[in-house]
């Protein structure tokens, strides 16, 4: 059975159709890339799944259970964690405190929450920064902190909203390895990204949306040859 099923998901902002009749499934253990031109509705789709906005129509099922219309904290408790496109760390708290707060969700005692936080931070390569304030980290570190915080809630499904944006080539390479590692650790990943090279190298499957609608759903090597996708990104030839 699919871990996440999205069926006929539709969101209007007044007259603006941000997401229209979007359907796709996420299988356990895969990395699903979600791409599309600017304004295609990727982040809206994310916000709908994570509960930050509520759908006009459509279903969102996690393990067969409907989560559409739930509040964000309830969605996280069900096992979906997210990161934000523009990082939102708890700036004036330390790195350890940032992640410990997230670990409280599964570990009510401070001691256990802290050791969970340390484990996750080590995986993210942030163990040397645990006493630093989040605001003092580099962007690359803040992005990793954001992922660490999401992982500390022990999600089944991790939603990454452009984790590569603003990173340099070396950092992108490191981040790709990190994302694949997380997946190997048993967390399913849905990943919105503008850096296509990274997503094509790491995803098992790619869903392309344009103007709120799905235009392709296939493994990465087929996506790059799909005429609809090429048209959406580059436009069509005038005849």
């Amino acid at each position, binding site marked *: 059975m699919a871990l996440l099923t999205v069926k006929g998901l539709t969101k209007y902002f007044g007259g603006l159709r941000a997401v229209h009749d979007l359907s796709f499934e996420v299988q356990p253990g895969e990395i699903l890339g979600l791409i599309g031109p600017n304004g295609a509705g990727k982040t809206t789709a994310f916000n709908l799944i994570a509960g930050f906005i509520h759908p006009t129509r459509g279903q969102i099922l996690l393990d067969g259970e409907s989560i559409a219309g739930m509040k964000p904290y309830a969605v996280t408790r069900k096992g979906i964690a997210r990161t*934000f496109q523009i990082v939102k760390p708890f700036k004036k708290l330390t790195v350890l405190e940032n992640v410990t707060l997230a670990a409280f969700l599964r570990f009510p005692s401070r001691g256990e929450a802290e050791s969970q936080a340390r484990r996750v931070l080590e995986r993210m390569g942030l163990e040397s920064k645990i006493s630093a304030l989040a605001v003092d980290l580099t962007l690359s570190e803040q992005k990793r902190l954001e992922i660490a915080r999401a992982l500390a809630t022990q999600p089944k499904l991790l939603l990454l909203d452009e984790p590569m944006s603003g990173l340099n080539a070396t950092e992108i390479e490191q981040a790709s390895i990190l994302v694949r590692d997380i997946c190997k650790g048993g967390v399913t990943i849905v990943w919105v990204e503008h850096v296509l090279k990274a997503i094509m190298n790491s995803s098992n499957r790619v869903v392309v949306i344009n103007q709120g609608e799905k235009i392709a759903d296939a493994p990465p090597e087929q996506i790059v040859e799909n005429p609809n996708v090429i048209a959406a990104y580059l436009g069509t030839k005038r005849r």
Partner: protein
Amino acid sequence: MKKIIIALAILLLFTAPWIVSAPFFVHLMIMVLMWAVLGASWNILGGFTGQVSFGHATFLGAGAYTTMILYLKLGIAPWYGIPIGGLAAALIALPIGFICFRLRGPYFALSTLAVAEIIRLVALNWESLTNGPVGLLITTLPDVTFGERLIDWESKIPFYYIIAVITLGSIVATYIMSRTRLGAYSLAIREDIDSAEAIGINTVQARVAALSLSAFFAGVAGGFYAMYLRYVDPDAVFSIALSVEMVFIAVVGGLTTVAGPLIGAIVLVAFGEIFREIFLVHFKLVGHLIFYGLMMMIVIRYLPEGIWGKLRLWFGSQH
């Protein structure tokens, strides 16, 4: 070292009326401590969760009227009435919280102002319960014996000890909060509410809990205020000026600190009073608000973390 300082502070708190026993100074110390409780109340919400309330007089007034009405109409003695006043304030904070916390940032702040005004108008017009603008007055307090002695309510000393205990309670509660999950969640909410939701924090529930705890202390202070003055009316306990003064004290003392509100109250209330005396004598002006304004400007410009927020770093304290 820290323990010694805390022990000395507590010793000073309980011996102060023996050191300076002139009624004016005891009255001043009572006012300082009462405002320390109100500052602590505001700090629990405004400091920890970062939710700015301009309507905290609501809870002060709720506590004051509850204690007063219980005593006048049902004969319930103030030492029950004051904590019940706190509970009543905590209780009315629940619906207010669930409604107002649908809003964020400045919109929340404005909604608290609106709620406070609504409640003030209710108190003004619900004459059968509150006696309207005339207010409620009590002439005598019930007899209480402490050991063998009958407590003399005409003296200010018993009131000093009551408010000293309440102040200590508010400081201990703030300390405990800062070390529990509610405190940690509050900081997360203060730093970034979207991220707080994203890591599974029910931010409405956490904010309502903080508001309710905050309201409890404002209510207790209100109950005390009513018994100390032996009088309440809507303007004396529900006015916006009171709400704003709570903000001043918490900010000047140092937000999110444990001892900040007490320091803020000492600086603003005690020095403000002295300033007022000087102005009254020399310039025939009521000048303490000038002092408040000056302090606010100095703190915002040079000490955004508040007086204690800065000092505690020198003491190497986290609280």
